[in-house]
């Protein structure tokens, strides 16, 4: 086929309109959400004392961190779906959840003992090690997987110049959403626990996302 012939053919297809990448991403995530929710409620479920836990600011902080991660990663991944885009000017969004965590750790360290909720008065290492680290590191990646697959399907509508990077961000996105679910089950509320185990689980999913992205997000 000559190039002129190809050009004429492309022009004939001009009427076709593709949906914006954001739309495709949301649709894919909504389709995968029931799978992840089912996994979560079947295997774990919300912790029984959730009503009391909500009065503990360190319990609530977990959601601020995980949702901040999910929302920042969604924005960055949509930005990166444009071929001329780079992380410059956008990467800092991903520092917001990290900043929230650091603020939480400092808060827990500096607040006088009597002002802290009971679980936060335990020794530092006890809080960091917690009692759910294994569940955390299994549940977050497993609940993430359907969401990661969906995010990659949605982002395939884009044209990322760096597919592995875009895939890693898709990993952060799905880990952020999965961790939001998991946080409602887990009784370890210390930011030290979150900063350690949630981060390991998230990094694992980001690595899987990068690997998958380098294959499926090429255009």
């Amino acid at each position, binding site marked *: *086929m000559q*190039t*002129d012939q190809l050009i004429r*053919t492309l*022009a*004939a297809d*001009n009427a076709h309109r593709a949906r914006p990448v954001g739309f495709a991403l949301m649709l894919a995530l909504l389709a995968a959400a029931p799978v992840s929710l089912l996994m979560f409620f079947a295997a774990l479920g919300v912790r029984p004392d959730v009503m009391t836990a909500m009065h503990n600011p360190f319990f609530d902080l977990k959601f601020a961190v995980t949702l901040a991660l999910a929302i920042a990663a969604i924005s960055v991944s949509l930005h990166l779906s*444009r071929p001329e885009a780079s992380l410059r000017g956008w990467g800092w969004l991903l520092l917001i959840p990290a900043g929230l965590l650091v603020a939480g750790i400092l808060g827990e360290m500096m607040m006088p003992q009597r002002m802290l909720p009971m679980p936060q008065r335990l020794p530092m290492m006890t809080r960091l090690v917690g009692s759910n680290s294994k569940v955390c590191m299994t549940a977050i990646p497993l609940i993430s997987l359907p969401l990661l697959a969906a995010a990659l399907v949605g982002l395939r509508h884009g*044209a990322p110049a760096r597919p592995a990077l875009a895939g890693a961000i898709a990993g952060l996105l799905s880990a952020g959403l999965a961790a939001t679910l998991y946080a409602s089950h887990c009784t370890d509320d210390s930011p030290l626990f979150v900063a350690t185990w949630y981060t390991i689980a998230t990094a694992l999913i980001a690595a899987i996302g990068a690997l998958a992205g380098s294959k499926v997000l090429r255009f």
Partner: protein
Amino acid sequence: MREREEEWTGLMRSAISGDSAAYHRLLKAVTPVLRAAARRGLARAGQSVDQSEDIVQDILLAVHLKRHTWDANAPFAPWLFAIARNKLIDSLRRRGRRVFVNIDDFAETIASEPAAETAPASEVSAELQSLPARQRDVLRSIAVDSASIKETAAKFAISEGAVRVALHRGLASLTAKLREQ
């Protein structure tokens, strides 16, 4: 050079609001620039410039299928060059070389002499053979026989909607096949 880029942006805006003639003109206008950049990339990687037309067609297909990722408020050229650079690196890599392609390569070629088509492209034609019959027939009718969508619909006794669907799916699967090579 600046004027030309602004013209492209204007044409692409018209194209997106439904003006197929503007779209045709835009693709015609960018092709010599893409061709010159593809040649330069091949030459620099020590490969035969005979393959440049395959790369040009590869880029045009990507431009077409990814044009919804262009922000209509932004200039068109940086987006185009990003797509072209990506495709060029990809093709050179597929042909067995790791190379660095500078974004300035494209900007420079805008000013240079337009390059004419030399060696014919073969990859798109080859992949065309492996498409499902309906898609292949529709693509051939429009590309090779220069038939319109309406004429193609009459020729195969199918609706114009069916022709449009087959046309778009055909272009999308051609692109997918080229990528998997």
